[in-house]
Structures are given as structure tokens and as C-alpha cells.
């Protein structure tokens, strides 16, 4: 098959509608079940889950120790588990070491704590470059790391999923766990940003 022109391609929206119309008409999928899945990942499962995990680790040293030892179990304590979270490993950023997560082969991502991945995580530029020139790419994405900081890149090639535990920013000593969770961003938990006040 050669693609010398693009004019003959059917739009992806139309192909999607076509497949749904076939599957629903033959009772192979239930649109209500589809709606449930969609609602779950649009409303219930997202980076606010991971932010709660991070905030708890910041205020509770015992929880943090458990979290780094057994990510899956400690995250489940807060009620977060499910698809793409069978085994979650948490890696901790420090002034000396910066962790960042990628999936070069598809876009594996820790759904129970971060929801579905953002556009940039799925971008071929991110997938191809993060394992070859992370410092340059992070810089282009707005995160300048000191030359002395060691970068550790985690490629999610098996069913293990990764979550970055970002550094707690200075000046947050008086904030509650809930207020801290409000500071934690998705980007920081993937490792392409830091948490700031």
C-alpha cells in the first residue's frame, strides 16, 4: 500500500462512528458501558489521585517509606487501583537526582494515579527523545536542571508503571495535606516539571 495522496483517506471521526454503529447494531458493545468508561476517566480518575498520594508522603514519613518500598500497596491504601496499575513503583526526586517517566513503545502510564496521559506524553517527539536527550528535551519543556543533577529515565516497557514523587517545595511548612495536594501537578508526577508554590 502506498499513500501518495491523502485525499482518499476516510476521516477518523467517521471511521469511529462507523465502527460503533456496527458494534452497537449487533449488540456487541453497549453504549452505556462505553459511557461509563469515558465518565470514569474524565471525572473520577486523574492526577488528583496521584496528588493525594504525594501530599500524604510529604506529611507522613512512615507512609512515604511504605510508598517507596511498596508503591502498589500504599497507593491502594488510598483507594487507587485498577487497569494500568497492577504494579506501581514510586521514584523519589531529590536535589541530586531527577526522575522522568516515558513509554517509548506505546504510551504506558499509571492510570489509577494519573488518569489518561496528556497529549505531550503521547507525542512521538517525547517518546523518541526522552531516552536519548532528556536534558535537552526537559529544557525545551521548561525544566532547566543544574548540570550536577543526575537524570534517571524510566522506560515503561513491562506492566510496571512509574510515579515520580516530586520534591516538596520550600515555604510549604504550614500547608495542610489537602492544600499540598492542590499544588502537585501531573507534569511533576511524570517528571517534566517541579512543584512550585
Amino acid at each position, binding site marked *: 500500500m502506498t499513500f501518495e495522496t491523502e485525499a482518499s483517506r476516510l476521516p477518523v471521526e467517521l471511521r*469511529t462512528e462507523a*465502527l460503533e454503529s456496527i*458494534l452497537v447494531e449487533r449488540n456487541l458493545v453497549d453504549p452505556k458501558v462505553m459511557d461509563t468508561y*469515558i465518565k470514569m476517566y474524565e471525572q473520577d480518575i486523574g492526577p488528583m489521585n496521584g496528588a493525594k498520594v504525594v501530599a500524604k508522603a510529604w506529611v507522613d514519613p512512615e507512609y512515604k517509606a511504605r510508598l517507596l518500598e511498596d508503591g502498589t500497596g500504599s497507593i491502594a491504601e488510598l483507594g487507587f487501583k485498577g487497569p494500568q496499575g497492577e504494579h506501581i513503583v514510586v521514584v523519589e526526586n531529590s536535589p541530586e537526582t531527577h526522575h522522568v517517566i516515558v513509554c517509548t513503545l506505546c504510551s504506558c502510564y499509571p492510570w489509577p494515579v494519573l488518569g*489518561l*496521559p496528556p497529549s505531550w506524553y503521547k507525542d512521538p517527539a517525547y517518546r523518541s527523545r526522552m531516552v536519548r536527550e532528556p536534558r535537552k*528535551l526537559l529544557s525545551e519543556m*521548561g525544566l532547566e536542571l543544574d548540570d550536577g543533577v543526575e537524570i534517571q529515565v524510566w522506560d515503561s516497557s*513491562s*506492566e510496571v508503571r512509574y510515579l515520580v514523587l516530586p520534591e516538596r517545595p520550600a515555604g510549604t511548612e504550614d500547608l495542610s495535606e489537602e492544600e499540598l495536594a492542590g499544588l502537585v501537578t501531573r507534569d511533576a508526577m511524570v517528571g517534566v516539571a517541579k512543584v512550585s508554590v
Partner: protein
Amino acid sequence: MDTIADMGGMQGFGSVELSPPFDPPFHEEWERRAFAMALLSMRVSGTNLDSFRDALARQHPLDYLIDGYYGRWLNCAVNLLTDSAIIAPGAVEARARRLRGEDVEEPPAPEPHKPDYKPTAAGSIRKIDLPPMFSVGDRVRVAHIHPTGHTRLPRYVRAHTGVVRAIRPAQVLPDTNAHFLGENPQHVYNVAFDSQDLWGSEGEKFTLYIDLYESYLEPEETS
């Protein structure tokens, strides 16, 4: 497989555009529908998550790139459903043309033939009795192989040597499970590579960690 999906280190993709912090997971209605249908297509086609990733990777590279993430998922669902003869080849295109008013004939629904496959348990993690072949600290060489079927061994680490940093829970081997050739559960190792060994001494200095199934690894040659 050596497909467009195996992108680690590939050059030419340009720069990444950051999305806003509260970027929603879906930007268009069809993306929602494609997402949910693709998830359900595994059950409808009688396949599994490894077949799903295989069906994602083996689409034409141009489809892979032009249709975007959820477009890829749609194409993946069509691959799985066609392979299991739930839908006929060309059925989606024919229906799409009818939906936009063209008078085309649709292929009849075929006789389904789902794979002869049943998982031994939910998920991908399994208990195995054999002890791990490698220990934390061992130097291991990644096999220099080009599996013709599905694999989770990216090209950029093949034929390189790294150090085992952790032993993960044993998992179903995607290479066989994707093709219903057995779960073949294996020990999985987190292996660390020196970036300059991977990409050359002119490149950036960092550590690359990746989880590799036992059959992808060999003991380092002692010369």
C-alpha cells in the same frame, strides 16, 4: 517487531508542545468513543492486552502517525475485531461511506473465529517457581534479536550491556501471549544502562532504566 511504534531514539520528530496542566484527556467526541470501543474490543474479540499492543504497533506507519493517539486505538480495535472475524475486512470503510451517503455495499458479518485462548488469571503478574536467573548487580547483555512478532524489547537497548537494579514481579511474556502461544511467565528485571554506552560518548550523560523479560537477557560474555 521492528515497527514505527518502537520510537526510542528515533530522530526527526521535532519538538514537544506542552499541554496546559489541566488538559482534559479527550479533545473531541470521537476520541471518547474510540477509547471506550478499543478497551471493549479486547473482550469482544477474545484477545488480550498484549494482542492489543501488537495490533497497535503493526498498523501502517502512516496510519500510526496521522491518526493520532486515539485514532491508533481505533485502528487497533479494527485489527483485533477483523482478526477474530467479528467484523469483515473493509466493513468499517463501507459503513463509513454509507454514513456519509454513498451507496456502497457492506460485506456480510463473517463467522467469528476467536483465538483459542483463556488467561490463567487476571492481569499480567504471575507467580513462578523457578528462581530468577539473574541477581541485582549482575551485568547482563540484551539479546541482539529481531522477533518477527510482538515484543516489548525496544531496538535501542538490543546488543547493549546493563546492570540489574531490581527484580520485578514475574509477568506473562508479551511475545508469546500476544499471539496466544502461551503465557510463558518470566522473571522481569529492571536493568540500568549508561546513556553514553547506548548512544555514544558525544551524547548526554544519564541513566536509562528499563524493565526486561528474562528471555531478552543473556549473561555478559566473559572474554
